[in-house]
């Protein structure tokens, strides 16, 4: 058998895993690997900062359902990936991060560009490896992809010392993985499924609360079938958006802190809450003991540790959402009473998401609605974090899974733009928008160079209020309007910045120019930055104040 170097083995292993793209930034200890990638049939996308490589791999994974791959050199390259890895960990996104490391004899000696990245990422990866021998490399890569993509997905990091990439061995790629400590359970327990079916048949006021697990599991079809059969109204989490069509009459919108009054009222009044691929995050539940207080709670999730973590569950079913729904659907019939459905419809009609549509200024919500209209609700939308994220979640009506990419758990500003790059690389024929705030956009603004270089047609829509808007909103509501460190009045001219990077920049100051600018961006073949100068002190409403029950929403500031 032919002997191969570690770098060659790595590239061959990645090909065996079907990797077509790596988001990677080179460096000293990675020279050998990048040399092999130079003429390998794998596309290497070079970002301008390693953090963007990790977010792009994440966006690639969320948009395509495949494992995203990012790569960096040792030391600072590796530590720059950390925020992106933590983001993927919190939102259960399958990525494999490959980091360079100093040669094994130097490890632990404070060598140049050395960092203990497996130590640093231990609490933010599903698993990580330090490969100490080239003989372990192929098996490690096999295991890394297996662990990242199965069970509850998540990031896996593989640290590659320089000498491991240059040493040689015979290459044999394992066909199977056998990890005695890792055997995800996909089948739900039949007795638990039966108990859930019984609870559903007894319920009159059911609510489905579905999250990102439905999308990871590829179970949107099953969720729709389950909801239609039981007639249970559906509330989605932020990460669940797109798992159930927003146009469906049973859709109540997002629940939680900035959810709809309808979704929060229904959860608060239901007699049965069916949680599917969701984890009872504090932004969803508000005050825990007043969350679904009268309901029997059933929870379907692949992660046993998610069961009864924050809210005690009556009927847990551990396993794959899709598999379990397929078994549950034949066992259920319509349970929602007419009276309940009327009540839900009444809430929905009485408390729609709204804003001052007659305003002469550009309302940020108006921009989102116009993007939704112009893209016929078919675009992939990445968001940054803060007000822009919440308005995108509220006013863009998502119809399909894998079209909404947002950092939900970690809440990472600067996520959206590189994630949009990853999504655009994964889906070259799709229209990809990053809905951004002026604060967040500046956290990875250097990626304009990446989109300009690759002519990636990503559109960035900045809702520019010259504030760190969400923090300003809280300062207004809870800190007496003392805008401590939240005013960004000295922002640069983003259209000019875009120009300088070689992207198209358009500044929009009048309401009547909003739609034409969006259309122009869509009709432009390359990257475009739309700088919408919006109403400065618009608040995201409705909202549940921190620590309050979700039934106690503030409707207007």
């Amino acid at each position, binding site marked *: 058998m032919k002997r191969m170097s570690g770098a060659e083995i790595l590239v061959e292993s990645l090909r065996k895993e079907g990797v077509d793209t790596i988001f990677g930034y080179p460096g000293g200890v990675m020279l050998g690997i990048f040399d092999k990638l130079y003429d390998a049939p794998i596309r290497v996308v070079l970002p301008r900062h390693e953090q963007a490589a990790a977010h792009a791999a994440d966006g690639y994974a969320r948009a395509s359902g495949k494992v995203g791959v990012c790569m960096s050199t040792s030391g600072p390259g590796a530590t720059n990936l950390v925020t992106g890895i933590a983001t993927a960990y919190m939102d259960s996104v399958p990525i494999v991060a490959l980091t360079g490391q100093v040669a094994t004899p130097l490890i632990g000696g404070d060598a140049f560009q050395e960092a203990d990245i497996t*130590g640093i990422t*231990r609490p933010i990866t*599903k698993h990580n490896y*330090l490969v100490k021998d080239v003989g372990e490399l192929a098996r490690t890569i096999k295991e890394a992809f297996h*662990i990242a993509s199965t069970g509850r997905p998540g990031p896996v990091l593989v640290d590659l010392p320089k000498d491991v990439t240059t040493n040689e061995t015979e290459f044999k790629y394992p066909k199977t993985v056998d990890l005695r400590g890792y055997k995800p359970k996909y089948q739900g327990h039949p007795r638990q499924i039966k108990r859930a079916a019984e609870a559903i048949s007894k319920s009159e006021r059911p609510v489905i609360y579905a999250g990102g697990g439905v999308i990871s599991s590829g179970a949107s079809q099953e969720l729709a079938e389950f909801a239609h059969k039981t007639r249970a109204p559906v509330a989605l989490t932020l990460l669940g958006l797109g798992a159930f069509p927003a146009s469906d009459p049973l859709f109540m919108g997002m629940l939680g802190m900035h959810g709809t009054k309808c979704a929060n009222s229904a959860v608060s009044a239901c007699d049965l809450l069916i949680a599917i691929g969701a984890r009872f995050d504090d932004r969803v539940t508000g005050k825990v003991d007043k969350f679904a207080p009268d309901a029997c709670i059933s929870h379907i999730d692949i992660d*046993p540790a998610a069961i009864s973590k924050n809210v005690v569950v009556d009927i847990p079913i551990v396993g794959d959402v899709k598999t379990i729904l397929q078994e549950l659907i034949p066992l259920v019939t319509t349970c929602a009473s007419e009276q309940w459905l009327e009540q839900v419809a009444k809430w929905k009609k009485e408390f729609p998401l709204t804003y001052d549509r007659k305003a002469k200024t550009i309302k940020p919500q108006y921009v989102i609605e116009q993007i939704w209209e112009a893209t016929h609700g078919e675009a992939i939308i990445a968001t940054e974090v803060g007000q822009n994220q919440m308005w995108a979640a509220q006013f863009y009506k998502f119809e399909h899974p894998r079209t909404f990419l947002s950092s939900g758990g970690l809440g990472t500003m600067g996520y959206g733009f590189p994630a949009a790059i990853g999504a655009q690389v994964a889906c070259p024929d799709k229209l990809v928008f990053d809905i951004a705030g002026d604060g967040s956009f500046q956290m990875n603004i250097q990626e304009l160079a990446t989109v300009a270089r690759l002519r990636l047609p990503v559109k960035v829509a900045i809702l520019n209020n010259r504030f760190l808007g969400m923090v300003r909103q809280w300062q207004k509501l809870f800190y007496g309007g003392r805008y401590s460190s939240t005013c960004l009045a000295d922002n640069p001219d983003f259209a000019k910045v875009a120009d300088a990077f070689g992207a198209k920049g358009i500044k929009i100051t009048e309401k009547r120019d909003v739609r034409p600018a969006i259309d122009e961006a869509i009709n432009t073949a390359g990257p475009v930055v739309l700088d919408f100068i919006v109403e400065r002190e618009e608040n995201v409403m409705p909202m549940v104040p921190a620590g309050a029950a979700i039934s106690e929403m503030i409707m207007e500031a």
Partner: protein
Amino acid sequence: MKRHTISVLVENHPGVLARIAGLFSGRGFNIESLSVGETEDPTASRMTVVVRGDDLILEQVTKQLNKLVDVIKVSDLTKEQFIERELVLIKVSADGKSRSEILQICDIFRARIVDVAPKTVTIEVTGTEDKIDALVNMLKPFGIREMARTGSVALTRTPK
């Protein structure tokens, strides 16, 4: 808060101890004792972790431990019948007058003298936490110079 003895069977890899310890410390959990050693299978190690906490938090920790790829099996032994032992070395001040009294106490506890010097004796004792605490209390008046405890090791009792 209830005392739990958790037995964790893990892969015998570098870094596993840090993963387990990190899981506890990341949740603000104080580990009372922890012991690690190879098992009958040299590729696996057994960790015995003693912690105090309420049942709900303990259940969460157990589930999180189970999620670790390097963890093969987790059992909260407190839920079943189990045998628990700890080994302790205690160096006690001892002069001509007190030495025989110390020896008597050791006899009662089936402890052994493993080192004798003009001004100290060093005692080795094995037992449950309660027994060891009792011995330590008895020896305190003589002056304990140094003490080293291994932490508990435990196995379930075989049902008869």
